[in-house]
């Protein structure tokens, strides 16, 4: 039996080793790939839940890789914040992997071994970025997750290759800025370990190089999370990616980037430096407002529901960034809660979209016509996701939005409240339009045969339906237990001194 001490490394190592094992097996027997991937993700999820449990009961976990003490070796640190994010990542990845079976078979025939190996490596990248306590280690894993994402997006249809190329160029700029920021920290302090940096930095807060380092890291991470003026790569790449890819990438990539921003702002730098010394919070909040309003408006102009969802991601990133920069407890709690909720919301919506695409073959609004009668369960799940996105209680989306609004009122940022309400309104318009099309309009895929009109669209296969329904139920469960989540975990994740 494995010692619970070793859980942190298992979260990363199990999918990592399995990726190579899977790749080797794939050379001989292709059908074994999916079971291996599922098993690996299940193992990682179990280890992540175990670690979170240990964090809640015994406190922060430190794990020394290679047995070297922290500033010299690499260290894994799990606290309440990233313990939670790790659980979210592994669960979302597991659901997405269960879902992806049929769509990979259809969209990428013959490429299952490569696809699942890259899928696992992408998850490893995301997990490793979340768990690590070393600024440079984060960069390496950032590159792993980015490279896999470029490849997994490029194999989609239509303009996916070009979108992926753009993503590669902009993503490389972002990652390089991050690396350069870490370099600035290194040249001024001589350390790469986050905790060590945090202990040295306070003496250097007046330094121009440290300010530049902070800006560079911030811009790098913003590029990766598609924060408003830097979002241009996101919509096309997520829209034209294969279904299985977008179900994994859309819920997780931006959220992990938001997590990295929180980690950098509060664990490497301090809230005092970020909020009081720099006084750039108003600017960032206005940018977040621009993201929310811009994302919503752009979503409104789409006639393609997958693309519409991608613009909503841009708006949601604005929620989280704005919430963090409100610089009070309620706002940050709301933002962290929204990382969890939004991951599942996006997952639910993208899984539903994936199911619809699988059955109808397109992602235009016209494809939705009459689907409520043909795929009732799928559309119910889609409705729950939509309600959560709008922020209707008791779904999860309501509670994080509630915290965000309370936080912005407390901070006196009424313009942010207005942006949040505006975005909810736009979401309501968007989703009710979709639901209207799918409920009232006549399906186009009917053929009049001798036996009367026969629908060509049926309910999704079970492997797709189960993860979809699970994610929809999760949204309600998260909504009901959001109080618990906040008091048990998130309130410890908010940094002291706010």
């Amino acid at each position, binding site marked *: 039996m494995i010692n619970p001490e*070793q859980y942190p*490394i298992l979260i990363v*190592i199990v999918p*990592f*080793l399995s990726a*190579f*094992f899977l*790749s*080797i097996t*794939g*050379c001989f027997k292709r059908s074994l790939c999916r079971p291996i991937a599922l098993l690996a993700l299940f193992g990682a999820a179990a280890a992540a839940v175990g670690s979170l449990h240990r964090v809640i009961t015994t406190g922060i976990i430190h794990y*020394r*890789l*290679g*047995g*070297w003490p922290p*500033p*010299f*070796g*690499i260290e894994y640190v799990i606290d309440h914040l990233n313990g939670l994010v790790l659980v979210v990542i592994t669960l979302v990845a597991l659901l997405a992997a269960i879902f992806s079976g049929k769509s990979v078979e259809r969209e990428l*025939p*013959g*490429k299952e*071994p*490569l*696809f699942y*190996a*890259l899928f696992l*490596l992408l998850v490893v990248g995301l997990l490793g970025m979340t768990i690590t306590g*070393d600024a*440079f*280690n984060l960069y*390496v*894993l950032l*590159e*792993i997750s980015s*490279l*896999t994402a*470029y*490849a*997994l997006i*490029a*194999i989609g249809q239509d303009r996916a*290759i070009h979108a992926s190329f753009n993503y590669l160029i902009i993503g490389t700029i972002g990652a390089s800025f991050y690396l*350069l920021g870490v370099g*600035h920290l290194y*040249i*001024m*302090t*001589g*350390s*790469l370990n986050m905790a060590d940096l945090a202990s*040295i930095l306070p003496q250097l807060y007046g330094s*121009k*190089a*440290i*300010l*530049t*380092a902070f800006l*560079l890291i911030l811009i790098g991470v913003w590029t990766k999370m598609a924060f408003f003026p830097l979002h241009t790569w996101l919509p096309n790449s997520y829209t034209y990616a294969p279904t299985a890819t977008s179900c994994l990438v859309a819920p997780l990539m931006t959220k992990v980037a938001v997590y990295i921003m929180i980690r950098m702002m509060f664990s490497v730098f301090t809230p005092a430096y970020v909020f009081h010394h720099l006084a750039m919070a108003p600017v960032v909040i206005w940018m977040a407002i621009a993201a929310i309003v811009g994302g919503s408006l752009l979503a409104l102009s789409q006639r393609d529901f997958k693309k519409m969802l991608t613009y909503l991601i841009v708006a949601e990133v604005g929620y989280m960034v704005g919430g963090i920069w409100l610089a009070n407890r309620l706002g940050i709690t709301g933002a962290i809660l929204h990382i969890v909720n939004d991951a599942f919301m996006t997952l639910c919506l993208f899984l539903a979209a994936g199911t619809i695409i699988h059955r109808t073959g397109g992602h235009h609004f016209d494809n939705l016509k009459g689907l409520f009668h043909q795929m009732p369960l799928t559309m119910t799940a889609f409705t729950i996701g939509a309600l959560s996105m709008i922020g209707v209680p008791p779904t999860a989306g309501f509670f994080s939005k509630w915290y965000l609004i309370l936080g912005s009122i407390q901070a006196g940022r009424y313009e942010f409240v207005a942006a949040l309400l505006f975005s909810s309104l736009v979401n309501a318009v968007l989703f009710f339009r979709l639901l209207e099309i799918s409920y009232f309009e006549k399906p186009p895929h009917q053929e009049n045969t001798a036996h009367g009109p026969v629908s060509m669209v049926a309910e999704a296969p079970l492997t797709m339906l189960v993860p979809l329904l699970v994610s929809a139920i999760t949204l309600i469960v998260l909504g009901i237990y959001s109080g618990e989540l906040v008091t048990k975990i998130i309130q410890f994740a908010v940094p002291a001194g706010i």
Partner: protein
Amino acid sequence: MIWQIDLLILTLIVICGFCTIVVKDLLGAAVIFGAYSFLMCLLWTEMGAVDVAFTEASVGAGVSTVLFFAAVHRTTRHVKMKPSGRLMGKTIGLAAAGLMGCVLLYATTDFPSWADPNSPASTHVSPRYITGTIPDTSVPNMVTSVLADYRGFDTMFETAVILTAGLAVLIILGQTGNRSPLPISRLPQGPITQGYDDTIIRFITRIMTPFLQLFALYVIAHGHHSPGGGFQGGVILGATFILMSISYDLRMVTNRFNERTNLLLANTGLLIYSGIGALCLILGANFLDYSALAKILPGTTTITARSEAMLGVEIGVALAVMAIVILIYNNLVSNGTYENGL
């Protein structure tokens, strides 16, 4: 560091970099970019970063330039000129570059002077590596010991990056053309198709290749005592196969290293690396804590076990890197079909 050479080479590098993006011929740009990498290699050497220089010499100057040639061979050499076009893009580019330049320049005023022995970077963490490498790991080359031991975890993922790149190239280019579903295990065995009889080149290649491969093995094994190691050795091994494929035919290499073999080798390499780490886990220590291996390696102490494990790790890295370099080159040069090479 040697400041006179430093100043000159940096100036040359700027000229090269500028001309690379100005020149109107993609092949020419690739050649100048190759020269740029040559100069980079000199710059690292002059600043004492011998391992970086070695990697740049093999990866930057060698393989990546050849990859550019392969890509230009498969696409076009010609850059279209539009005198009035893309004003918007140019403005954005200039503005972004200018803004970034100003911010970075602003930061440099606070930097410690170049090559200052008392700078924080040289006094905080690194002394431990310099003084500790022999007592902790018995490896004289401290870059190797930091790479494979103190920060061995980074290196594992770095190798994974290379593997990821290989898989990515396969999955991206695997779609083009009419080739059988992956992985290709057997290609049509046939005579060498290209009709160019480069007797001198082929003769030289035939003589050189065994020596080069021997040299690569030396680089892998001797990385503890001199610059070099798994990456550099692996790239040189891969480059010898690229050399064969250029001077003979692509078929000559793919007959020996088909896609399946390459994938197997690369994954085995990474399994060796992470397997050594996992072995430490099974033996009761933390992941990658090589000292635990002293229990099963005969005749080692906890210190020399680290040195031995590093060698194992380097071999894994070399296998993976070699296979992936061959894989990427083969796919790029034939546009994913393995039909004709450069």
